[in-house]
């Protein structure tokens, strides 16, 4: 089932000229985040967070780095899209909106890069 209007499909765009891809991306990441965030929070409850060794062992153990990487990517993706919509709806001045959208994208790119780097570094330290 397509949720797009025939005219929108023909022109390759929605009513605003864009947005269908954004809409789908936000929903797809939301669905992915349901199991990922539940897994993460349940794991946190069983983790002694004061214990550095236990925390880093958990990050590096088994498939955890993979799930953490997916969690970080999906979280940052979903968060960036969500904050973007909030900015688009509430910031009406053109220059300010442009700056805010740019800052939003940059901040979330930085967050996902830093998070993935951290997971990778913990895994590599465990191998050394």
């Amino acid at each position, binding site marked *: 089932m397509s949720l797009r209007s025939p005219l929108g499909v023909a022109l390759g765009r929605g009513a605003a000229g864009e947005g269908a891809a954004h809409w789908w991306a936000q929903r797809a990441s939301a669905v992915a985040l*349901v199991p990922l965030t539940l897994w993460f929070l349940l794991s946190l409850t069983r983790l002694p967070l004061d214990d550095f*060794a236990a925390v880093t062992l958990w990050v590096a153990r088994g498939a955890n780095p993979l799930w953490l990487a997916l969690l970080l990517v999906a979280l940052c993706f979903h*968060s960036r899209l969500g904050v973007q919509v909030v900015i688009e709806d509430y910031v009406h001045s053109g220059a300010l909106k442009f700056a805010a959208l740019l800052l939003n994208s940059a901040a979330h790119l930085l967050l996902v890069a830093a998070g993935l780097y951290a997971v990778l570094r913990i895994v590599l330290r465990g191998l050394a």
Partner: protein
Amino acid sequence: MFSDAHEVPSGRERPLSPHLSIYRFMYTMALSILHRFTGVLLALGLCALVYWLMSAAAGESAYERSGWLFRGWAFRVLLLAWLASYCFHFFNGLRHLAWDAGLGFERVHARRSARLVIVLAILAFLIAAWVLFWPRAGAP
């Protein structure tokens, strides 16, 4: 007769979405704005999550130093706020996904699902807060 619709745009400020002030308040509206509010709060929580991972990646002494944030009472308040935000955003997000699938649009259904989201979010928050804070009082 020509209607106003055919005239050249006047350049007058036209209302932009979301025009909150023209509707009578309904609790379903509170849920809608809460979804955004909790989403933005959770985006800030994402910064804390990445800081936690970065401090663990930087080594044991760096991890200990990050305690200035994670061990403080202010962070516990933040953690509870993020937990509450997550519980609400999770269940209301499922409600939005149901709408996106074309389910539950009827007014009576939307209001019933709103009340269900509130009840489930409060229950989940109480259980999660109890699990996170009660058995290990020293480790938020």
